[in-house]
């Protein structure tokens, strides 16, 4: 019984320690953005790796998500004779939920795991220590640009996702199922309010930071060789997916 309690306590302490460690890691990483030397090119490189390279998969996911939403929504709404609401159903579910969450999941699967593997390998091959000996802060050179790139690119990717999803919904709803194009767009414009869009942007900012923070943290504290890298990558994907969905619930219940 005592042993069980001790295990529970140990687990809770570990959880708190990890959360605190991540928070300090985040604060240090973001604070370093305001300390010279500023390496603008590093930021561009990371934006390329995290943002530009994700565009194709985001477009693909978005188009199919929009098409599925339109298809499912159409047959449900048809039962109530209100197919006209299809545009607003597609746009609202994309902007409020699907856009931020699916973008974050795709980015974490594509870029988050890559970031962990990259930093993890730099750690186990002592490249981070080598940077340190050359008086280059690895936090500032490696981690900070990635955090900023996540913060900048994920909201942009989310916006691209939303627009592409709306186009996907248009293809199915208007071109295949024969809804009038005017109704599709006017219902959409009528029902989407600025709060929806702000909420979506806030969500994607939080998600972007979370994904890259988890990825960098797990990579930075990788241990025990190649096996450690594989474990860290695995943990990154699982933890960021769970965190994204948990954050999503919290943000939705607080802000929207």
């Amino acid at each position: 019984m005592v042993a069980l309690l001790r295990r529970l306590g140990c687990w809770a302490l570990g959880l708190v320690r990890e959360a605190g460690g991540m928070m300090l890691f985040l604060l240090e990483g973001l604070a370093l953005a305001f300390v010279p030397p500023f390496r603008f090119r590093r930021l561009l490189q990371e934006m390329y790796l995290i943002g530009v390279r994700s565009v194709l998969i985001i477009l693909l996911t978005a188009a199919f998500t929009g098409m599925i939403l339109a298809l499912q929504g159409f047959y449900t709404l048809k039962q109530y004779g209100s197919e006209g609401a299809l545009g607003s159903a597609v746009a609202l579910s994309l902007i409020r939920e699907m856009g931020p969450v699916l973008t974050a999941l795709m980015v974490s699967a594509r870029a988050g795991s890559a970031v962990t593997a990259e930093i993890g390998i730099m750690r186990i091959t002592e490249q981070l220590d080598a940077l340190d000996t050359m008086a280059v802060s690895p936090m500032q050179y490696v981690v900070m640009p990635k955090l900023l790139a996540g913060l900048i690119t994920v909201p942009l990717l989310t916006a691209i996702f939303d627009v592409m999803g709306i186009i996907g919904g248009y293809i199915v709803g208007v071109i295949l199922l024969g809804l009038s194009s005017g109704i599709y767009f006017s219902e959409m414009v009528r029902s989407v309010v600025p709060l929806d869009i702000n909420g979506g942007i806030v969500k994607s900012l939080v998600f972007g930071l979370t994904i890259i923070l988890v990825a960098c943290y797990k990579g930075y504290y990788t241990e025990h060789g190649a096996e450690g890298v594989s474990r860290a990558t695995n943990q990154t994907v699982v933890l960021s997916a769970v965190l994204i969905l948990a954050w999503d619930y919290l943000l939705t219940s607080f802000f929207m």
Partner: protein
Amino acid sequence: MSRGNIELLVGLFVLIGLASLTYLALHLGELELFSHGYRVYAVFDNISGLKTGAPVEVAGVEVGKVEAVEMTQDFRAKLTLKLDTKVVLKEDTIASIRTKGIIGDKFVKLTPGFSDKVIPPGGTIRETESVLELEELISKYVHGKV
């Protein structure tokens, strides 16, 4: 991948992302950067769940929006309507609350008047007609007040 190429691609990506964001914010969210139009007020006995952002129509044409819903001291509903500058309302304009379709949304319908005087910006529409509530009508009929 050479340096120039990365810059080009990142630039393109940021441009597309910002364009999408602008489309969402300006077109769908109708974020008003340059505020056009003027405000008038209208006080109703009952607005029955009309929401902020509901359209204001004249002859079925959307000419504005409900900007705010408040309650007055004497428990009536005060609406702030934001109208296009092009729309000039005569003093005896009637504002009424109607429903689109059977389960549709509520909107404010303006019936233009013929007076010589116009309602200035910040003025109040005096003639208002509240929602026709089916339950109230039925109960009046059942309790024999008709």
